């Protein structure tokens, strides 16, 4: 039975460097690009250290005990003594997890409260308000103060707090830009709030994490953090070049499709805010009828078709120091 222990030891040894490597590599969650994401990453790394200690202690104890007390042919087939529990020991291993829970709970609560508000150091600045409306299977971003609406991409000023007021036109989704902060659900007839800040200009990966049907895998978007000047230029440019969104066009966008990017010089908030109800007006269950088999590539065709008629201004405002991330 020697092979058993050896192989098991190998398995254990194999996992630990993997876990350690996770903390140092450029896994997206460990690569924060803003204060909100950074406080989450700090909390995560803090917890991983505790967890690694626990794993190492339990694995070591386990390995030692299983090895030392294995049955051997020369042990005379002895019968071990019966053991009652030991109160002191049991109290010890009751107390240790209690202490660990307390140690984890304090920074957890602190961080939970912290990320609900404007990030520290930005309290004085007036946040840019962006309404997020998720639909099947696209993201619609409305800038009420700038009077701009974009689909499937989001431009924000860097080093400036952004307040997202989020809702959904139908199914439940989850808005997540891992490099900038944690996720939150978007729900019809509801409004959820999220604050994010990007330290520097750059391009960040965002997506929906809450499964909402056939086009779900394609429901991602790009967040471009621009310098304040570039952002202002972009706003001006949209006003100069983009089309106006009509309600007719809007209900077409809300149909369940995978589409490309779009830009408009007004917002749909003029006629509906899905946070306050009324979404059913745009819903049509018949569009969700399914068919089986590979002949169905409707979603993809739609994408290429839409991309051609959407505004191409996005390419013009490529930020100068765009950070290339593996994602996108």
């Amino acid at each position, binding site marked *: 039975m020697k092979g058993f222990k050896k192989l098991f030891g190998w*398995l254990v040894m194999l996992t630990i460097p993997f876990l350690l490597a996770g903390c140092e590599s450029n896994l997206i969650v460990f690569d924060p690009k803003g204060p909100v994401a950074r406080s989450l990453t700090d909390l995560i790394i803090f917890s991983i250290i505790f967890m690694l200690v626990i794993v190492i202690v339990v694995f070591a104890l*386990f390995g030692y005990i*299983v090895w030392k007390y294995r049955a051997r042919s020369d042990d005379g087939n002895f019968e071990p003594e019966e053991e009652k529990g030991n109160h002191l020991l049991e109290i010890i291993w009751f107390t240790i997890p209690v202490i660990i829970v307390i140690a984890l709970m304090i920074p957890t609560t602190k961080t939970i409260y912290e*990320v609900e508000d404007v990030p520290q150091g930005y309290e004085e600045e007036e946040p840019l308000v962006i309404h997020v409306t998720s639909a099947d299977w696209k993201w619609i971003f409305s800038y009420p103060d700038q009077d701009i609406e974009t689909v499937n991409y989001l431009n924000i000023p860097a080093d400036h707090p952004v307040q997202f007021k989020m809702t959904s036109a139908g199914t439940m989704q989850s808005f997540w830009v891992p490099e900038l902060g944690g996720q939150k659900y978007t729900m019809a007839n509801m409004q959820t709030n999220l604050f994010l800040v990007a330290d520097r200009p750059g391009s960040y990966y965002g997506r929906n994490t809450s499964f909402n049907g056939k086009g779900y895998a394609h429901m991602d978007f790009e967040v471009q953090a621009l310098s304040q000047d570039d952002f202002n230029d972009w706003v001006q440019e949209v006003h100069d070049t983009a089309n106006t969104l009509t309600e007719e066009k809007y209900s077409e966008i809300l149909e369940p499709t995978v589409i490309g990017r779009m830009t408009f010089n007004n917002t749909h908030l003029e006629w509906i805010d899905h946070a306050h109800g009324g979404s059913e007006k745009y819903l049509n*269950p018949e569009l969700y009828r399914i068919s089986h088999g590979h002949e169905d590539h409707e979603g993809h065709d739609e994408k290429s078709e839409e991309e051609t008629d959407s505004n191409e201004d996005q390419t013009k405002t490529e930020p100068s120091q765009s950070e290339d991330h593996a994602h996108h």
Partner: protein
Amino acid sequence: MSLDEFFVTGDPLILASQIAIGLTMIGLIALITYLKRWKWLWNEWFTTVDHKKIGIMYIISGVLMFFRGGVDGLLMKAQTSRPELEFLDAQHYDEIFTTHGVIMILFMAMPLLIGLMNVVIPLQIGARDVAFPKLNALSFWLFFAGAMLFNVSFVIGGSPDAGWTSYFPLAGKEFTPGVGNNYYAIALQIAGIGTLATGINFVVTIIKMRAPGMTWMRLPIFVWSTFITSIIIVAAFPIFTVALAYMTLDRLFGTHFFTVANGGDPMLWLNLFWLWGHPEVYIVVLPAFGMFSEVIATFARKNLYGYKSMVYAVAGIAFLSMLVWVHHFYTMGNSAAVNSIFSLTTMMIAIPTGVKIFNWLFTLRKGRIEFSTAMLWSLAFIPCFTIGGVTGVMLAMAAADYQYHNTMFLVAHFHYVLIPGVVFAVFAGLYYWWPKMFGFKLNEKIGKWHFWLFVIGFNMTFMPMFFVGLDGMSRRMYTYSASTGWAGWLGFSAIGSIILAAGFAALCYNIYWSFRYASRDVGNDPWNGRTLEWATASPAPHYNFAKVPEVDRLDAYWYMKKEGNTGLKKSDLKPVHMPSNSWTPIFLAVVFGVVGFFLVFEWFTLAILASIGIVVGLVANSFDYDDGYHISVEELADEEREWRGDLQ
């Protein structure tokens, strides 16, 4: 509705399955007819009320469902093994991860555990059957009807495709208008009634049917964990019943409990689902803990360390399990206070769980550890489950969860909890109690193959998911682009899943091999066990114990053996009263299945007509005056002589 809509068409994979299912059915019917086994099947299995046979039928169903759910899993791994593969389309992938989840939790884990509970619990408490044997049969057949109804969905009408959690509003008619999610609502309801009845049955059995002298603190630990599990079933399943009823009303009759339109509240579904769903996790994990405890004590050849604290730990976990459901949606916009409180209650579960881990380690300490296959599963459970546990604590921290929620990190975590916690336990339990069920052991050598392939495959499949999750991959994505950099992790994971599947194949081969070739001479107590189930013959006779044993301490059988007190005097024998077989449970379940099928397709007239059968079954059952039968002393003595030799 045209035939084309009725049968799922257009997908070669599904077409192949349809043909395969058709051929298998015809083949099975032909085989049974050829072997003239119909009468035998009806008398010995379909109408049986014997807890051991019901347990075995649960286990067979569980293994079959394991295969089905496993194939779903393999298809998912194949589809994501390379970026932008076109092996499955989005719709097919969505259906498969939905059925994978539902089947693995409700139709694989549950029946395998309930099956082992059925076989073992009455034997461990020295009883002749459960408290309500006929209800027990009804439980099984309702579960089976629910499982079959659910499985038929992928060839007839289309499978549910909103995830095993079936979150509204997605799962409502507004966004999934087909019949797929009707299957979810109705099949789970039928199976759920069976599970609820099982819970009630075991609570009563354990309170009322214990052998004389078996006080609460002399209960084997598996009985304790089953008892507490049954209480959670009774507490939690009605919540699911109500949630599914609302879902059915929404989908079939146009109500607005969970819809977007007309003031429905999808968040209510999330709350109800997880108010049941989180306790459900403990419903499957707690009996597993009990099994590990039995196996570890037996093969360390020691009593369980800290028995009382183990009991309190199980009770504590059960209590906390009802107080943590919000951690499944920290990201739903709850206040910071709510998230903080639920972070705390969730992390507190780690305390009793930690106590259990240390008690197991100290049971092993100073023991004489024999590496039987059952023991290997129990040992591998400890480190693997520890990884699942610590990542669970990480997920419990609400703020950190904002970065893990709905990602592959979460998927990796719950597979690291449920596979070591439940599947390893079921394997340990199968190897351990197999001789008690069938009178022969599973082969140990093939068992080692099964073990190593499965454990290595499991770690290879699910470990990479932690990392790909931390790299921003959300769950349930049927495809991804090469530029994400996830291909390496997912390719490795896909290879792991093949090894995992090979492990499962080794189990199936082991069952086949052992049925044909294993030695039938295993005696009543092949593992040198400690509890009462080993005091009677293997396989256990239908009356379980010729004379109900008397218990004067924990690990009663262990001390009976030491004191040479295992014999049987013929003068102690009395006639044994046994329950008769009954046709009503299987009849009712078939009718439930038919009614359910009609409801799925919203054929209400047919459904109402068919439900007359339910009334017929219930009336027939009420006028059943069969009080069972008696086994005479002579018959008992004859059967006992067969394995004991002469009686004292």
